[in-house]
């Protein structure tokens, strides 16, 4: 089986809710994002989390710049992410075994 970019896929996700930190005049999340549909994934030094949704916006087919913009909206103080990662599956398996 393979994953075809652009096709819908069902995945185990984790909800993450982050309240933005205030730094001077700005609200920041405090981490960096990398990648995007327009980026080369083989150069990813980390390979864990992938973000599926930000505050309801679909992120599976966005460019790097679009992703950055959706996370840095000035009017939003809380960012709700749906995140998936490889280790989620392992954790699911382990809990089902026991």
């Amino acid at each position, binding site marked *: *089986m*393979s*994953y*075809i*970019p652009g096709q819908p*896929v*069902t*995945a*185990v996700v*984790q909800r*993450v809710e982050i309240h933005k*930190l205030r*730094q*001077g*005049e*700005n609200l*920041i*999340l*405090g*981490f*960096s*994002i*990398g*990648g*995007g549909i*327009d*980026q*080369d*994934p*083989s*150069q*990813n*030094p980390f*390979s864990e989390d*992938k973000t599926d949704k930000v505050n309801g916006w679909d992120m599976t087919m966005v460019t*790097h*710049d679009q992703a*950055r913009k959706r*996370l*840095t909206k000035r009017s939003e103080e809380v960012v709700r992410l749906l995140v*998936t*990662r*490889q*280790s*989620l*599956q392992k*954790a*699911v*398996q382990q*809990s*089902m*075994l026991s």
Partner: protein
Amino acid sequence: MFSRNHRSRVTVARGSALEMEFKRGRFRLSLFSDPPEDTELQRKLDHEIRMREGACKLLAACSQREQALEATKSLLVCNSRILSYMGELQRRKEAQVLGKTGRRPSGWCWCRIGPPAERSPCHGRVCISDLRIPLMWKDTEYFKNKGDLHRWAVFLLLQLGEHIQDTEMILVDRTLTDISFQSNVLFTEAGPDFELRLELYGACVEEEGALTGAPKRLATKLSSSLGRSSGRRVRASLDSAGGSGSSPILLPTPAVSGPRYHLLAHTTLTLAAVQDGFRTHDLTLASHEENPAWLPLYGSVCCRLAAQPLCMTQPTASGTLRVQQAVEMQNWVRVHGVLKGTNLFCYRRPEDADTGEEPLLTIAINKETRVRAGELDQAPGRPFTLSISNQYGDDEVTHTLQTESREALQSWMEALWQLFFDMSQWKQCCDEIMKIETPAPRKPPQALAKQGSLYHEMAIEPLDDIAAVTDILTQREGARLETPPPWLAMFTDQPALPHPCSAASVAPAPAWTQPLPWGRPRTFSLDAVPPDHSPRARSVAPLPPQRSPRTRDLCSKGQPRTWLQSPV
């Protein structure tokens, strides 16, 4: 009855004996009372002169270039304020001598109904904030000063009337996409015909002699020519105080050695530019590439320019009125009316206006409202009435109010006419009150932010969260333990399309940089060439410290070459 718009230094009732004395020339109005505004201006001038002395001393004692830049900026702002105040004082004295004070004491008129011949609009507060000037770095900029990060110190000077204010100084280098100023600048005495002049000044942070760009003789020519013309500019600014002339507000001080600020761009904003939101305005660029302090400005400035006319924020009239509660004429209720902004509030008691109680009745007053004074025969004892009509869709709603006397009626009419006049002059500022934040006193340039932020302290154990998730999953679904679910392929599969270039050398941008003391966190320039899908793709990253020449010939499929990271 209190009426706010009667501004005068000396109130003289028309037709009184005192007015007769004035007309006969027995007294001069200026001798009668020392104008308080002039002593205020003198006091400000003395203050600036003292500040200037302090700035000179500080500049002489500076050892570091950045301190010298701040001190020079303070000195230049003091100089320009001194010139502006001196010019204004001179203008006022001349006007007094010639007998044109520019401000007539307005008196009451006993019998005449109608607007007086000459009306002046109320003043207001004008606030400019969220100033942002975009920059346009071209690719050649990266190669010009290799290894050296060329930096500029910039600030904005703003002038309205004789008042000059400045923003904080910001250090700019080529990693910034915009120059963003945090300051809110407030001018408290602006008329609707105000002209807010905005000037951007810049200086090199490095010594000007060290630049390889500007030829030596041009630099000396610039400095000497500034010295010659400064005398002319002193006279010019004295003649045209208030910044109405085209000469820049800021004068150089050739006698002081140290950093030199150059005018980079300017623009003038008027009432037409006022809006309760962000707008972009054009900048007139004033320097060219040969100038050592030249910055690649995009040519526009974004800001929020808001104005609050006094008629919107302060009550312009108040007094006792009687309103009709019901359709029948007999039932008149006594209220305390307050005319403020676009409403006439009718409170049950005078104290309610201050305590925040809801008024009994609120009548809207806007540019469509029609007002009529009249005399009602049917209401004996209080025949003087005021009718206010508003159109709501197809219906016309008229409120009839009784005033206490004929004089009170005149005053109310006068206040309403003044309000209509102010609304016609201040235009969009009278539709709704624009919010203006009182600018906080500017903090001194801060030291580096401390390390121990909340972000560093928080540690989230991923296993803690997953436990909750997996609990829900086990309850809901049966387990598929054997085969890995399809979505895991996202993490393991190679992308479907091959890419020949495996060694695109892109230096990863740092994950998160410390916020710098002079502005908001940097955003790396994301208007670098996006990975295009044409056959002739090339490898571009936001800050390429080195470029791999191999990539140019190998890339033929137009694959994404980069893996960008951005702080959020």
